C-alpha cells in the first residue's frame, strides 16, 4: 500500500508531463486516490489503540551488500503527516486550477508538484536512513524547479539560495548518517542503514553530540529555525502558491518529523545536552520572527516570517522534552500546515485579483469580498492562536509542557502570543479594513476557491474542538519520546528503556 501511494504519485507526475492538456485532472485523480487510501488506514488509529508498532510496513531489497533496503513503514504519526501532505497537495492543485502564472507548461508544473508531494510522502515513510536521505534530497529538486520556473520576479536568486541552504545542510546529515552506519558496523559487525537496527548504537557523548549536530543542522535549516532562516522569505515569497503552501506547510514539517523520529531516538543523551541551546534558539525565533513579520510591507513576506515565528514553538516544544509539549508539537505541525496554507492560498487569490501582494495597495476589500474576508479572518485568528482553532491547542500544550521544565523561557515565549496578535491583525486590518483603495466588483471568492478554503476551515475547527483524535493516533509515538525525557540515565540504560518500549508496543 505504501509503495502504491508513491507509485501513483510518481507515475501520475509523468503522465501529467506527457498529457499536459489533462494534467489538472490527472493530478487531482492521483493525489485524491492516494488521499483516500491514506485516510482509510489512518482513521482507525485515531479511534482505537494500535496493536503493533506499525500500521503498515513494507520492505524490499535495495542494496543488500550495503545493508540498505527499501524499508517503508508508517504509524499513526507518519500516516497523519502523509494525509496532511496529500490534502494540502490536492488543495494546491485545485487552488492553482485557473492560475495564469502557471498556464504555461502546465503539465510540467504538475509533474514537479506531484514529484514534490511524492518526495515529502517518502520522507514520512522511510525507515531506512539512506532511503530517508534519498527522499530528503528528492523533495528538493522539484521544489527548486517550481521556484525557478514558475516563481516571482526574483525567482532565480531565491531558488539558488534555497538550494544552497538545504543542499549544504543536507550534506551534514549524510555525513552523520554514514558515520553512524560505520560506527555501528564496527561495533557489531552488522552494517545496516535500518532505523530499527541503528537505534541501539552506543556512542561516546562527544561523538553522539557531533552526529546529532549533523542531523540537527539539516533539520534546523529546513524548518527553519533561527539563525538559519535567511533563505525563507525569498523562497516563500517567490514560489508559486501551491509550492509555497507545500514548502511552508509540509516541507518545514519534514524537519520537525525528522527530529522527533530520528534525531531524538537515535541520540537521546546528546539531546539532553543540546536542549537548553535549542530552546534558546526556539524562543529567539518566536520573538524575532514576529518582529520581522510586523515590519514587512509585503503580505507574502509577512506571512513567510509569521511561519518562521511559529516554527520557534516547534523547536521549543521538541526540546523541552515533555509529554504535553510533544503532543503540542505534533498538533502544531498539523494545525500550522493548515493555517499557513490557508494564508498562502489567500495571498494567491488576492494576487490573481490585483496582480500584486504589496500591503499598501490593499485596503477596504471587505466591501467587495465579504466572504473572502470572513474566511481570511479564520486563518488570521488561527495564526494569532484563538481558542477553538487547532493552533491554540497546539501552542497551549507546547507552552504548558515547556513550562514544566523551563519557566523563564516559557514566559518569554508567551510574549510571542502578544506579538503574534500584533502582526496577525495587520493582515486583517490592512487588507480588508480601512478605506477602499480600489473598486473590485465581482471579486469575491469563486466556487472552487470556496471549496478549497472550506476544507481547510473545517479541518482547523475540527482540530480545535476534537484534537483527541490526533492525540490518540500519535499516542504510541509520544509514549516512546517520553522515555527519552527520563533524565539522568547512563547512555546504555536509556537505550534499553527505549528498546523495551518499542517492544512493548509491538506486543
Amino acid at each position, binding site marked *: 500500500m505504501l509503495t502504491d501511494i508513491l507509485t501513483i504519485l510518481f507515475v501520475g507526475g509523468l503522465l501529467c508531463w506527457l498529457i499536459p492538456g489533462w494534467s489538472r485532472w490527472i493530478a487531482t485523480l492521483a493525489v485524491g486516490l492516494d488521499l483516500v487510501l491514506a485516510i482509510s488506514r489512518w482513521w482507525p488509529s485515531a479511534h482505537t489503540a494500535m496493536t503493533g508498532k506499525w500500521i503498515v510496513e513494507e520492505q524490499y531489497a535495495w542494496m543488500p551488500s550495503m545493508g540498505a533496503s527499501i524499508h517503508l513503514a508508517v504509524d499513526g504519526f507518519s500516516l497523519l503527516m502523509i494525509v496532511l501532505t496529500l490534502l494540502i497537495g490536492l488543495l494546491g492543485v485545485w487552488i492553482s486550477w485557473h492560475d495564469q502564472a502557471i498556464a504555461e507548461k502546465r503539465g510540467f508544473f504538475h509533474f514537479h508538484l506531484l514529484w514534490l508531494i511524492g518526495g515529502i510522502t517518502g520522507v514520512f515513510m522511510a525507515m531506512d536512513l539512506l532511503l530517508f536521505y534519498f527522499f530528503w534530497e528528492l523533495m528538493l529538486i522539484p521544489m527548486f524547479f517550481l521556484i525557478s520556473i514558475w516563481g516571482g520576479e526574483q525567482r532565480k536568486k531565491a531558488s539558488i539560495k534555497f538550494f544552497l541552504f538545504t543542499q549544504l545542510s543536507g550534506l551534514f546529515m549524510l555525513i552523520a548518517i554514514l558515520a553512524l552506519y560505520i560506527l555501528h558496523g564496527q561495533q557489531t559487525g552488522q552494517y545496516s542503514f535500518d532505523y530499527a537496527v541503528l537505534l541501539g548504537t552506543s556512542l561516546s557523548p562527544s561523538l553522539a553530540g557531533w552526529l546529532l549536530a549533523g542531523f540537527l543542522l539539516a533539520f534546523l535549516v529546513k524548518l527553519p529555525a533561527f539563525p538559519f532562516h*535567511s533563505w525563507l522569505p525569498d523562497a516563500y515569497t517567490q514560489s508559486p502558491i501551491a509550492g509555497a503552501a507545500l514548502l511552508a506547510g509540509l516541507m518545514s514539517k519534514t524537519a520537525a518529523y525528522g527530529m522527533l523520529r530520528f534525531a531524538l531516538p537515535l541520540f537521546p543523551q546528546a539531546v539532553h545536552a543540546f536542549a537548553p541551546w535549542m530552546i534558546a534558539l526556539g524562543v529567539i525565533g518566536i520573538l524575532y520572527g514576529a518582529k520581522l513579520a510586523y515590519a514587512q510591507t509585503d503580505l507574502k513576506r509577512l506571512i513567510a516570517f509569521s511561519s518562521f515565528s511559529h516554527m520557534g514553538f516547534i523547536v521549543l516544544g521538541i526540546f523541552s522534552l515533555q509529554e504535553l509539549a510533544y503532543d503540542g508539537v505534533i498538533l502544531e505541525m498539523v494545525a500550522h500546515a493548515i493555517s499557513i496554507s490557508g494564508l498562502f492560498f489567500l495571498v494567491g487569490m488576492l494576487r490573481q485579483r490585483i496582480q500584486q501582494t504589496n500591503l499598501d495597495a490593499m485596503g477596504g476589500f471587505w466591501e467587495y469580498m465579504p466572504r473572502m474576508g470572513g474566511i481570511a479572518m479564520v486563518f488570521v485568528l488561527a495564526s494569532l492562536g484563538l481558542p*477553538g482553532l487547532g493552533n491554540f491547542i497546539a501552542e497551549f500544550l507546547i507552552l504548558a509542557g515547556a513550562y514544566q521544565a523551563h519557566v523563564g523561557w516559557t514566559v518569554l515565549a508567551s510574549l510571542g502570543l502578544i506579538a503574534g496578535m500584533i502582526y496577525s491583525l495587520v493582515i486583517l486590518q490592512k487588507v480588508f479594513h480601512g478605506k477602499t483603495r480600489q473598486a473590485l466588483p465581482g471579486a469575491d471568492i469563486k466556487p472552487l476557491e470556496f471549496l478549497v478554503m472550506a476544507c481547510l476551515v473545517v479541518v482547523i475547527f475540527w482540530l480545535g474542538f476534537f484534537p483527541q483524535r490526533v492525540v490518540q493516533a500519535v499516542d504510541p509515538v509520544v509514549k516512546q519520546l517520553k522515555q527519552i525525557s527520563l533524565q539522568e540515565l547512563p547512555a546504555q540504560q536509556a537505550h534499553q528503556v527505549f528498546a523495551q518500549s518499542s517492544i512493548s508496543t509491538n506486543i
Partner: protein
Amino acid sequence: MDVMHFLWLVPAFPLAGFLLLALLGLRLPARAIAWIGTVSIGLAALVTLWIGLDFLQQPPAAGHYRQVLWTWFNINGFAPAIALYLDPLSLVYIFVITFVSFFIHLYSTAFMRGDEGYPRFFAYMNLFVFSMVTLVLADNLLLLYLGWEGVGLCSFLLIGFWYRDEANGYAARKAFIVTRIGDTAFIIGLFLLVKQFHTLDIQDILSQAPQVWAIGAAGAFWVSLLLLGGAVGKSAQLPLQTWLPDAMAGPTPVSALIHAATMVTAGVYLIARMHVLYSLSPTMQLVVAIIGVLTLLIAGFSALAQRDLKRILAYSTISQIGYMFLALGVGAWTAAVFHFMIHAFFKALLFLGAGAVIMAMEEEHDIFKMGGLRKKMPITFWTFLAGSAALAAVPIITAGFYSKDLILFDALASTQGSTWLWLGGFIGAFITVLYTFRMVFVTFYGEQKKVIAHDPERETAMMIPLMVLGVLSIIGGWIELPHAWAHFTPFSHFLESCLPATQLKAGVESWELWLQLLTAIMVIVGIYWSWLAYVKRPALAYQLKQTAWGRALYPFFYKGWMFDQLYDTLLVKPVVWLSRIDRHDFIDYIYEGFGQLNIGINKVFSRTQNGYLRWYLLCVVGGVLIIFSLILFV
C-alpha cells in the same frame, strides 16, 4: 425529565444563530436577520429562566450541576472537557447575560436598521453571547479561556464594526492587544496550575489548593497575581484600563452589551470563581482592593471632565467595576456579584438611552451641544433618569443604592476592610453623583441646541428595552436589603453555597445605619451641586474651570490621567521603533555577505587566469621564493 439536561441549549442557541447568520446572512432579508439574531438570544434566555426556576425549586443535591459534552483531549490524565458547570454564581451570570442581551438585541433591530453590515452585526453579537455564556458556564479554565478570548474577539470585531474609518480600526486593535497582554498573564497562570495540579478543572483546583498551599504560600501568590493580570485586562482596571474609552468607537448597543453590562465584568467573575486562591493569598487580595479603589477614583475624576456622552459612561463603567474589585478585595464576594447584576441593568439602560439621544442628535456625542431634551424625549429622559439615579445610588428608591451601599459598608466593616478603602469608595461615590447629574442636567435640561432629526421614541423596539431596564434599575435591589433594616437577603443566601459569606469585624452592625445616612446626605449634596453648577448658574462651572487648579487638572482628567501618553512613550514607540530598524533582517546580511565574499574571491582568482605567460611565470617564481624563504628563515 430533568430540566438541567437542557443546559447546553443556553450556549447552543446563540451559536446556531451565529452560524446561520455567518453562512447565509448575506442572502437573507433584514427582517429575517433581525428575527434570527433576536430570537436565538430570546430562546437562550427562556431556557435560562426555565433552568433557573427549576434550580430554585429543587436545587441539585450537590449544589451544582455538571454537564459533560465531550472530552477535549486526554494526555496522560490531563483531560480538560467541553463541560458546563451550573451553580448559583454561574446561574446569576447567565441570567443577566441572556436577558440583558435579549433586550439589547431587540433594541438593535431598530437602532441598526439600514446599516449595510446588518447581518454581520447580529452574527457578531450572537457569537459574543455564545462566548460569554461559555466563559461563565465553563467547568475548567481552558474552556473558560476559550470563552474569554471569544468575547475579546467579538469586542474587537464590534469596536471596528464600521471598518472604513481607520480610527475605529485603531481602537479595535488597541482593545484586543491591551487585553491580550492581560490574557497572556492569565495563560501563564494556567501553565502554573497545570504544573502544580495536573488539571484545569476549577472545582478540583479549588478543593486541592488549600491542601497544597498554606495561607500566604508563594504558589498561591503567583497564580492569583497572574489571573489578576487577565482580570484587569478584561475588566479595564488599572493599569490596563486605557482601551475601554476608545472602545466607544463601536455601535452604541455594543457599548451597552459588551463594554458595560457583560464582557467587562468577566474579570470580576474570574476572581469570584477562583476566590479560594485569593483567600490563600491575602497580599494579592489586598492588591485587588487597592486596584479597585485607585481605578474607581481615577476613572471617576476622568468622567467628570468628559464631553462625549459615551466616554462619560465608559469612564463610569471603569469606575463602577472598580467598586466590584474593591468588594472582591475585602472578601465581600456576594456584594461584588450583586453590584455586577445591578450595574448591568442600569449601565445597559444608560447606554441604550445614550444611543437614543445620539440617534436623535444625528451622531452628535458632545453633551454640551445637546440640551433641553427632557420634554422632547420623555421616555428616554425618565428611563435615563432612573438609570442615572441608580448609578448615583440615590437612597432607598434605586437599586444602585442597595448594591453600592453594601460594598461601602463591607469596605469598612469586613475583617479585610479599612477606613482608607472605605474613604476612597466614599469619595468615589460623591464623584459619581457629580458626573452623573452633570451628564443628566447638561443633556436634558437647559436650552435645546439642536432639533431632533429622527425621533427614536417612535421605535417601539427601542423603547421597550429602556422601560424594562428602567424598572429593573429601580426594583432590582429589593432582593437584598441591608441588615440594618431587615433580614431579607435572598440574593446572598442563594450564592452562599458557592461563595463564602463576608467576615465582618465584631460589633460593626450598628455602623451601617449611620453610614447609610452619611451616604444619603452626600448624594443629595452632590445632586444639588450639580444642579447649581449646570442648571441654576452655568457660569459657576465655567468659573471653576478657569481657576489655576481647574486649568491644570481639567485637561489632565480629560485625557484620562495621561495613561495613553505614558504607554505611548514607554511601550508603543519603542516597539514600533524596534520593528522599523532592521526591517530586512540583519542575519540575512551575514549570509549575503558571505555570498558576496565568495563572488569577490572568485573575481580575484579569475583575474589571475589572464592568459599571460609572463604573469604565470612571475607567480611561480614568487611562490618558489616565498616557500624557500619560509623553509630557510622561519
